[in-house]
């Protein structure tokens, strides 16, 4: 068991493109660290540099107290679960799990004891003599994990381990991995592009974009205090709404009317002109069913309603000025999305009777409103005490 300390890690490919650009992440001993970001953000490259499958162009990779930059993968004592499992098809499940032990020339009795223990943990006992080709996706996944836990590795590394499973199995395996990690108490680095996995599994989450670390914080901090537009848009589902906003005093002018914000927030953005306001869908409510205190209400014509039983989402289209629209289009691109028309997603209680075409009165929790600089994407209203580690550099490169 060991901590993993990445210090100013850079990965440049042959063409000089920095796939990972000066990233520093300290993974504490026993911590579950998530690397998350859209495709091409360098998260897998970073993981492969930890394990030694990619060369490190610059920076220091420390595992425990040892600099491992120049060590071969086999000398780093890490266990990795690959995205496509990479099981050995010519070996039985038993031999697959035993493979690392066999390489270490462990005596047969020890191999047997450890493999049986791992298979019991992962409920693979009845499959030990089968070949991987005859297993289901979830079983293969568990074999891959068995191969990792059978060793006394210093850390586990997961490279999008759940992306090949169907949605239901993914949920099960997710809690399985969380349970296993807590029980073994082993340092874990987990790469995913799925923000749900990031939020539910991680002790801390590192959000990356185009090779640059954006924010390193706990899931709650990321959700409540995103450091910039990118993190705000990436974390949370459905994603945060972004609206053009101008602030005068403590009132914020939104496309649907103006709302009042707390004075301390207003002070941070005084005299800034046109801004982007960010509000999560959950921070809205149908004024008719809202029993919440504070906040503001406004009127808007609902275009469409998706009723899901316990909740509903109302969609309200709006027009954004060009300045804001460009920034939002770019943001969509960064998030791997298609730029759709600008619309507000409003989360409503399941008991709400708002229907498509209605002019509804909507309540908004203005305490949770964030205001972003449209030029840099920086969150001007961020609570720095509770935002984990913000990369100042990331703020200016949006």
């Amino acid at each position: 068991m060991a901590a993993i300390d990445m210090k100013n890690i850079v990965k440049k490919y042959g063409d000089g493109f920095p796939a990972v650009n000066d990233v520093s992440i300290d993974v504490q001993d026993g911590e579950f660290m998530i690397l998350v970001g859209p495709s091409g953000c360098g998260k897998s490259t970073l993981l492969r540099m930890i394990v030694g499958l990619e060369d490190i162009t610059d920076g220091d990779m420390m595992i425990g107290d040892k600099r491992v930059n120049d060590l071969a993968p086999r000398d780093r004592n890490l266990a990795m679960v690959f995205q496509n499992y990479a099981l050995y098809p010519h070996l039985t499940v038993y031999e697959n799990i035993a493979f690392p032990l066999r390489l270490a020339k462990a005596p047969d009795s020890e191999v047997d004891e450890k493999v049986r223990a791992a298979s019991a943990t992962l409920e693979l006992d009845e499959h030990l003599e089968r070949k991987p080709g005859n297993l289901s996706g979830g079983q293969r996944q568990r074999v891959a994990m068995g191969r990792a836990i059978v060793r006394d590795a210093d850390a586990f590394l997961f490279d999008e381990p759940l992306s090949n499973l169907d949605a239901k199995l993914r949920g099960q395996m997710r809690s399985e991995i969380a349970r296993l990690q807590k029980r073994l108490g082993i340092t874990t680095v987990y790469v995913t592009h799925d923000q749900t996995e990031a939020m539910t599994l991680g002790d801390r989450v590192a959000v990356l974009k185009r090779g640059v670390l954006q924010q390193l914080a706990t899931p709650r901090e990321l959700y409540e205090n995103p450091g910039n537009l990118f993190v705000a848009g990436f974390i949370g589902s459905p994603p945060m709404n972004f609206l053009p906003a101008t602030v005068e005093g403590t009132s914020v002018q939104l496309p649907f009317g103006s709302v009042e914000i707390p004075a301390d927030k207003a002070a941070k953005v005084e005299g800034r002109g046109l801004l982007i306001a960010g509000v999560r869908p959950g921070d809205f409510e149908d004024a008719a069913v809202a029993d919440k205190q504070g906040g503001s209400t406004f009127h808007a014509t609902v275009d469409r309603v998706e009723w899901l039983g316990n909740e509903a989402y109302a969609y309200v289209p709006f027009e954004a000025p060009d300045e804001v629209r460009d920034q939002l289009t770019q943001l969509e691109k960064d998030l791997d999305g298609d730029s759709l028309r600008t619309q507000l997603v409003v989360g409503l209680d399941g008991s709400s009777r708002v229907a498509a075409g209605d002019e509804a009165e909507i309540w908004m929790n203005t305490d949770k409103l964030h205001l972003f600089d449209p030029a840099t994407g920086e969150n001007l209203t961020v609570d720095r005490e509770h935002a984990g580690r913000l990369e100042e550099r990331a703020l200016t490169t949006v």
Partner: protein
Amino acid sequence: MKNKIGLPVGVLLILAWCLLPVAWIISLSFKSQTAITNGSPGFFPASGDGAGWQNYADVLANDQFRRAIINSIGISLIATTLSVLIATLAAYAIARLEFRGKKLVLTMALVIAMFPVVSLVGPLFDLWRAVGLYDTWPGLIIPYLSFTLPLAIWTLSAFFREIPWEMEQAAQVDGATSWQAFRRVIVPLAAPGVFTAAILTFFFAWNDFVFGISLTSTEAARPIPASLSFFVGSDPFNRPASLLAAGAVISTIPIVIIILLFQRKIVAGLTSGAVKG
């Protein structure tokens, strides 16, 4: 309905076409020499024409033929082993590494494979006599290698390319050296390709006649196909056709055994289950 009848009929036709000469040689090998000289057109020996196993006994009793069998088996096996070994390593490098001139290596390999065998016989004859390889086992093994390696490399590199990189990387993370990853993970996965290459190489070496007859002069290295052509018997104007037939049948047996042995190993889809999808 048409398909259901058409397929077996087609198969039977092709089988008959291919197997008729073989069947005829087998038939010949059981006839006595006099029956053939006198003309005995029937497929089965007429009464009194049958020779039983006598032809086989005679052939096997022939010292020249016994030496030829040993030469053929030895030379073919050594050539096959070396070819597969070298081709496996070369193909792995070609599949995994990016190096300058990779295309050139592959193209050259193909060109060599297409080179007409006969055109090399003259120069090789001179060269081998000069360096003392004439009429030796290595003198045949080397040309066999150069003609079978290209095909083996092409076959194997195709197999290696099919094997996901991750397999190897997983092995390395699990604590394997590059060599261990190659031997314990990659080679077993490429086994179908290895055996395909082995069969092709063995065929070439076993069936070769041109090199066999040109680069040898004694029993020291002469393989079966060449040896059979020297099988003239006592009367040079009356070649012992039935003995030759028996010799031909015997020389086919190792090929059949090899095929049966290796065929089991050529199981397609061995990699299924390695990775998802």
